[in-house]
Structure formats: C-alpha cells, structure tokens
C-alpha cells in the first residue's frame, strides 16, 4: 500500500474514532471494503499451513466465489434490522478487524458488554467468542445477526427472506451453493471470507525463521522475559507448530473482579441457567447483561470457570486496542501492570496468576517484544499506535501497583521477585533437601 493511501486510511480511522468519541450515540456508518479487506496471501513467514488446512471444515471448502460472496455479506449492512450495521462495523479491516472501542455498538446505538475480538487468525481459534460458546466461525456468525443489540434481526427466516429478495444474492448463492439463500449457507460464506484473514509475517516470525537481526536487542530481552520472569508463555503459548500465542484455554485473570458484584453474579447465573437456557439465551446473557462478567462459566457451569475468558493471541495488538474482554485497558502497559501486580484477587483467580516483580524497564522490553508480533502489512499503523501508547505510559498508569508487583502488599507479604519469588527475601532459591538430613 502506498504511503499516501496509508496516511489516508489512518486519518479516516482517526476521524471515525474521534466522531465516535464525541457523538457516541450516533450509529457509525458501515465501513466499505478497502485494500485491507482483501483475502490475504498464504506466503507469509510463519504461516502454519498444515494447521490452517486442519481448520477448514470438510463441508465448507474455500473457493474464490464463496470467499467473494462472504466478503460481500461481511460488509453488507442490510443484514441488520435497520440497515445500519454490518459485520465490518465491529470488525473493521482498517482497525485490525476490530472497532478499537472498549465494547461494541450495534443497532439503535446500543452497546454490548464485550470487546470485539479480531477476525485476524480467528480460523485458528479452538472456540469463538471470549467465552468459547461457539465452536466454529460458521456457528459464531449465526449469533450477532440475531442479537437484539448487535444487528437486531428478529429471526433466521427474516434474514433469509431479505437476502432472497436481492437479485444479486440470489445469483451468487445459486452459483456458489446451488440453491436459494439460506441461513446455513449465509454463515458458511461469511466464515469462508473470515478464513482468508490471516496475519503472520512479523519481525518475530522472521527472527524464528533465522534472521537474527529481525528483532532489536530490546525486543530480544522482551522475548526472554516472555519466556521467563513474565510467565507469559504459560498461557500465551507459542511453538512452531502452533505459532498463535494462546493455549486455547480459559483463565480468570481477575479482570471481571474489577466489579464488586462479581461473585453474587456467579450464583445468580447458576440459578438462571438451571432453569434451562439454550444457546440463544446464553448469547444474550453474554452480550447484554451484567452476568456477562462470569464469562466461560455461562458455557461450562464449572466453578473454576467463573470469570474466566479465552486466552487471546498476541499478534497485531497495536491495531486491536483496547484490551481484555471488556476493553477496559487502553494501553498495553495497562495490561502489563495488571499482570505484574498479580491480577485482581478474587475467589476464582487462576492459580497461574501471581505477582511478577517486573521493573519498568522489563515492562518496556515486553511491550517492545509485543510490537514485534505485528504483521508487516499493519506495521505503519501499529507504529503510530505504539508511539501513542508509549507516550501515555510515561505519565498515566492507572493499573500500576508496584508494591503489589514486588510482593510487598496485603496477603502477599514482604519481599518477592524472581522465578522462585515467594520463598522470601534473603533465602537462597534452592532449599536444602530435608531428605538428605541424617541420611545413611
């Protein structure tokens, strides 16, 4: 993309963001597909080809015609009840396939409870949505169209009738699926398009492929922290076969515990769901009520899933801000501060979340490393956002709690830091093995 086009795109994105900020109640115009909406090439460094093939369902193979139909549908606001909201409203290619808002706005300017995840690399997700309530992209696409505060269509039949009345769609559906438009084929087409949005080819991928110079010294330090003291790798797992920076599991890291009503909501959710709730009711609960904060629990009903949300991948973070399931953290430094202090204590906090004892320099190194996970295509915009967040992080750190991070606070006791941190200050990391005392 040319520099000028890039600037134009950035300005448009900024413009929209400002408009939304100042006039949040007005519905955003649905985005039009630009160059970033095009299907992506498979020739990207670090692209896991076999894994990708594995994720394409046997009953929905990729074809160019299907992808084109899916793309048309993805950008078509007629899929919403008042013709104002398309998939791209919340998953805008120019905004990393998100809307860069804390939570998303649907028809009638209604806001939901959850941050819009990116479509980029979503074909690799083991389950869709923050609570994993839908297994595939096809199944995921069914829900927002019918959700009253997203696209607001009353039922599947209305959608199908509307599509069937559009000659262009009649033609395309017939050409691709050999029949008139129906709901199953609608979601198949959309999913097919989404599967083409893959994003690898980052400096990190080139580093792994053998280019020592692809990462700066700071980014390499960040990579070491990621694997070590930061403990990031334990949930944001990366390996060459599955280079996605997620373990595809659900963890309570304490974000929902920001709300004091969190535990009572868990009990309320259990009571509600025991009265027989289907997938539609869970979807509604997830998006439109306070109960949303119990996360994966709505799906699995297991106590350890209370307040747990899916581990997201870490690619292209600087075009998919803000962060966490509620979009509550505006900068990467806020997320790092959150982890550094050991999350927010609540009865269901995951056992892997502990204070990390990272210094400011180490957090900067980690942020630099995360920047290296940006795909080349998005690098310009990401750099701008990185600079913006860096600047904010020098003065404004609402989540920072150094005392907690260093283990100097509350039940965490005095003294901390380091991988053997909680053994305490002044003690050697390895205790003498009591079994060797008095041995024969």
């Amino acid at each position, binding site marked *: 993309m040319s520099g000028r086009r890039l600037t134009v795109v950035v300005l448009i994105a900024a413009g929209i963001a400002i408009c939304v900020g100042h006039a949040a109640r007005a519905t955003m115009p649905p985005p039009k597909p630009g160059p970033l909406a095009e299907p992506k090439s498979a020739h990207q460094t670090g692209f896991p080809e076999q894994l990708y093939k594995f994720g394409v369902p046997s*009953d929905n193979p990729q074809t160019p015609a299907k992808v084109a139909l899916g793309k048309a549908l993805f950008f078509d606001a007629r899929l919403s009840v008042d013709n104002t909201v398309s998939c791209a409203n919340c998953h805008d290619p120019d905004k990393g396939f998100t809307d860069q808002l804390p939570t998303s706005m649907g028809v009638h300017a209604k806001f939901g409870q959850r941050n819009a995840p990116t479509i980029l690399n979503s074909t690799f997700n083991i389950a869709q949505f923050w609570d994993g309530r839908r*297994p595939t992209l096809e199944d995921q696409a069914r829900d927002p169209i019918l959700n009253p505060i997203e696209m607001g269509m009353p039922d599947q039949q209305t959608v199908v009738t509307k599509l069937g009345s559009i000659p262009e769609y009649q033609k395309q559906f017939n050409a691709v699926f050999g029949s008139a438009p129906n709901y199953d084929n609608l979601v198949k087409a959309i999913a097919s398009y989404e599967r083409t949005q893959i994003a690898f080819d980052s400096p990190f991928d080139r580093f792994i492929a053998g280019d020592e110079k692809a990462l700066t010294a700071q980014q390499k330090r960040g990579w070491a922290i990621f694997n070590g003291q930061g403990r990031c790798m*334990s949930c944001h797992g990366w390996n060459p076969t599955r280079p996605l920076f997620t373990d595809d599991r659900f963890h309570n890291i304490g974000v929902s515990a920001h709300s004091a009503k969190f535990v009572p909501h868990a*009990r309320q959710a259990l009571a509600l769901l025991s009265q027989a709730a289907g*997938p539609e009711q869970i979807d509604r609960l997830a998006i439109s009520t306070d109960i949303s904060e119990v996360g994966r629990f709505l799906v699995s009903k297991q106590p350890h899933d209370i307040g747990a949300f899916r581990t997201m991948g870490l690619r292209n973070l600087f075009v998919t801000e803000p962060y966490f399931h509620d979009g509550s953290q505006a900068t990467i430094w806020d997320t790092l501060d959150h982890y550094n202090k050991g999350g927010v204590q609540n009865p269901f906090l995951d*056992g*892997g979340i502990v204070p990390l004892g990272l210094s400011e320099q180490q957090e900067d190194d980690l942020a630099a490393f995360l920047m290296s996970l940006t795909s080349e295509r998005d690098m310009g915009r990401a750099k701008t956002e990185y600079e913006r967040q860096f600047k904010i992080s020098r003065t404004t750190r609402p989540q920072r709690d150094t005392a907690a991070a260093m283990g100097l606070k509350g039940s965490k006791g005095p003294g901390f830091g380091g991988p053997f941190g*909680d053994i305490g200050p002044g003690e050697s990391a390895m205790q003498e093995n009591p079994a060797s*005392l008095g041995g024969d």
Partner: protein
Amino acid sequence: MAARHKSVETKFYEDRDRVLKALRNCDRRTFLKISAATMGAVMAKGLMPPHTFQLVEMANAAVEKGSSGVGASGSAPFRFAYISDSHLYERTLNQRFVRSIVKAVDDVNALDPQPDFVLYGGDLAQLGAPAQLEQGKQILSAVKAPVKMMVGEHDWFLDMGEKWQEMFGPPTYSFDWKGVHVVVLMSVYEKDFWTARKMTPEERMQTVAGLDNAVQSRFEVGEKQREWLKQDLAKVPSTTPIVVFSHSPLYKYYRNWNFWTDDADEVQAILKPYDKVTVIHGHTHQMLQNQIGNISFYGMLSTAWPWPYAPEGLPALTIQMNRADPFDQFDGCGDGQATARADGLVDTVYNLWDRNPVTVKADYLVSRGKTDQPPAPQFASY
C-alpha cells in the same frame, strides 16, 4: 444437515439441550429428582464420557441412591467438607500456601447448603512451628461450619505434639453424628529414630518432612491406640456405619514415601466386623481411592501441592488425575466434600481447583469398579 464431524463442543451442547429441554417446566425438586435418575441411569451403564453434559448441581445434590429419608441403620444423610495438608510456613516466608488455604476456606464457606462440619485433614503446619500452627488456626477460624481437627506428621514431630494438643486437644477421639460413628485417629506415630542419632527437634522434624528418607520410621497407629479403638468400638453395633478420619492411608501403598501404615492389617482387622466402613485420609496429596474387604478408602486433596503417583502400589480402583501444570499453583490441588448416605456408605466430591470436580461414589468402590465409574483419563493401571 450434511453429515459432518461433530466437535466436542457441539456434542456438549446437544447433550445439554436435550437435558435442559426435558426439564424446562420442572420445579426445583422434580428437576433434581429427574436429573438424579438420569445421571444414575447413565452411570449404571458405565457411560460417562468426559464431554457428556453433567449438571454441576449433581455433585452436590442430596438425592442419591439410598440417601433419602432415614435408612435401615437409623442414620440420616449428612454432608461434610474437608480441607487438608496445607503445610503452612510463616506468613513472611511463603505466601503461596497461605493463598491456597484461604481459597479452601472461601470454597467451604461458599457451600450452599453449608456442610454439617468441616474436617481438617492434618499437616496444617509445614515444620510444626508454633507460629505456623497459630497462623493456620487463625485462618481456619474463618470457617463458618464447626471444624474437626486431625493431626499430621508435619504438625507433630517438632515438639511431639505438645503445641498441637494445647491448641486443639487430644489427637485421637470419636463422636457420633446422625447415626454414624466417627473416629479420628492419630495415625502418624513413628518408632523412635531420633534419640540414638542425637537429633535436635528441628532435625527430627526435617527428617519426617522428607520423602525417600530411610532414616525415619514408618507411620503407625500403635498398639496403645489400637487398644483404644477396640474399646471405643466395643459399644458400637456392627450395623452402625463407621467413618474413620486418618492422616496416613491405613493401608500399604508406597513404603518409601510413607504412603503407608505399618499396622494397617491390625487396624483393618479391628474394623472388619462392621458392614459399612469408610476411611478418609490425607498425606497423599492426590486423587486416590481403594477398597479392601469391607473398607472404602478415599484420599483427600492437598491445598498446597500435588504428589505424583508412586512408582508401585497404586490401587487399581484409583481414578487418577493427570499431571499438574507447573505454572498453576492450584492445579492438582483442592478441597472436597462428602455425603454420608442413609445406607451408611460415603460418596465424595473432589473439588479440584482449575479443573472440573470429580464425584466418586461408594457404589463404584464397593462394586470393585463395575458400576458408577466416574470419567477418568485413560491411563494404564500399574
């Protein structure tokens, strides 16, 4: 719909939809009864694939086989919970174990309805120090239900139980509860290995605290306490259900780690005349079950850390847990609940943190694994 591979998620949803649709119009009691019957039917067929939808309430529902109303032995069903093996250091030294025991106290206090009592399974302190015991007592004082204390070797061998008895009373006692005779044993006595070696109390405690240490003796109930047990049971009819709380397993699992009670055979002989005997023990920090003759054995989870399975001697009936995630301090740990049924047998729920809870029913043990098998990872027994 074209035939396609159904994901685990999809099957889960279909099972769940089927169950919930059928129960849509029930009131709560009917709901529990039907779901219990369904669950019973499914479990009786031995069909419990891990992904099958299980209502969480099933784990806590009191509507089970033989447990409604008063049974033939005259006992009423009741529930108790346990917290075990916390191994506390002083607060300034180790926060991880404090965090865990506090989590267990939260779990137990959140139970609804509340259990009749909470058993503390032993090893409250790590090295028997007064400060560690005091800290543990302070944390346990937050438990709403009454707490029954049991001692472990980590509590005892610094001062031979002096501080423990001062704080919690005699280590061996019994009581009757709703028709069940409950015995709490001190099953971690050891024959003197320290005097000849001129060990300090600290060295003695450190030695007992270790594994694979041939210096320490094996655990035992001891002759004096076995006599006490005979006397205690003399007045108890053989039809009365017996529940024994013990720190060591009261059978012989793995000698090197003291997963072992030296006079287990003698103790089991004393319990043999009774129809329904359940032993609930600590020390092993893992999912562990066994059935020997008339006695069902359940090992309790630790709040502090999980042990791996010993290289030999693992009872074949044990529903194993797979290895813990080293990054997650709660994995493989937890607490639990038990239901003493009207028929005198005891079902347990292993409340594994960061994993799904596992219910192990007495019927599974008593039938030697033929019925009611809970979902388990497919490991070869050895």
